[in-house]
């Protein structure tokens, strides 16, 4: 009787390999919008005072405004909602006077070509707002009034003659 013997050795001889890390990647997209609000704007129609020819410089080359024609008005915005401000654009280049380019031309039929309408924030000392100029105002109230003043202005090139002195332009208001 023999004893069959076998030696079996179980060796864990190599070092353990590093465990492979499982990784996923997920893209997160978040898409939103901030809205501008809006206001209601009302049209403006103002009659300016009739002024005599002699209120203006009496030479062809003379230029000047006429205090007797000062006309204050406002562009009123109401029912403003989610608005932080607005940009006002006063007419276009096509509204400019031929030689007094920062004023509005006389569109009255038969009106003197040497009369323009000068638009300012305040007639005595305010900034000039010329045709096509954009002006931005910041406000968060439900209403906003933009103060303006118009006056007649004689350009060079001839004497002022009697007739209508009128202009009309579109103010485009873009809200923020």
């Amino acid at each position: 009787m023999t004893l069959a013997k076998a030696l079996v050795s179980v060796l864990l001889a190599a070092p353990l390999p590093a465990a492979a890390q499982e990784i996923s990647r997920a893209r997160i997209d978040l898409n939103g919008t901030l809205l501008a609000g809006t206001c209601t704007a009302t049209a403006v129609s103002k009659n300016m005072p009739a002024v005599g020819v002699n209120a203006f410089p009496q030479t062809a080359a003379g230029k000047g405004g006429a205090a007797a024609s000062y006309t204050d008005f406002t562009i009123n915005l109401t029912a403003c909602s989610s608005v932080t401000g607005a940009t006002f654009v006063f007419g276009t280049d096509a509204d400019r006077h031929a030689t007094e380019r920062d004023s509005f031309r006389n569109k009255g039929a038969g009106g003197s070509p040497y009369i323009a309408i000068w638009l300012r924030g305040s007639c005595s000392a305010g900034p000039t707002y010329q045709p096509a100029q954009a002006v931005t105002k910041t406000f968060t109230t439900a209403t906003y009034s933009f103060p303006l003043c118009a006056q007649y202005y004689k350009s060079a090139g001839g004497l002022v003659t009697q007739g209508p002195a009128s202009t009309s332009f579109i103010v485009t208001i873009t809200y923020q």
Partner: protein
Amino acid sequence: MSTHLLSLLALVGMLACGADAAAQNSARVDLNGSIDAGTCSVAAVSKTIPAVGANVFPQVAGNTGSAPASYTDFEIALTGCSGVTGATFQMGAVADASTQANVFRNKATNGAPFTGYWIKEGTGRCTAGATVAPGASITKNFTTATYQLYLCAQYVKIAGGLVTMGPLSTNFTVTITYR
């Protein structure tokens, strides 16, 4: 009779101690394996955040603030998890931040200025969750087959100017490392 017993014992003893001198080989056997971490499936997330008016934000350039009307809950949902004991979620990268380090910046073209997203984590969501800065990591332990990481996004104004209208969008990649 007694003589016979002694003989038997001696024989036995010899049998037990001695081994037969038989023919021998030895062979080394190596068996190498590893234990892997588990894995899950994860889906991309795309959320539309409600539009709000620009005026809900502070109207002072230097001020910051959020917009509760924009609170949007979302989750990173892990499914089909197998052999997972937890995961670490890396939320985007530092490069996704705005000038304010804990805000994901507005990546939209012509985006609303001085805006971004604030991401919060936890069941408290936007009101009580913990802020997640771009590039931060969140570690969770779980052994279930599914797992939801609760998150919330909200619009936020950062300092430097006033907010005006425009798109407010961001995107970032979450890298999930399983354990």
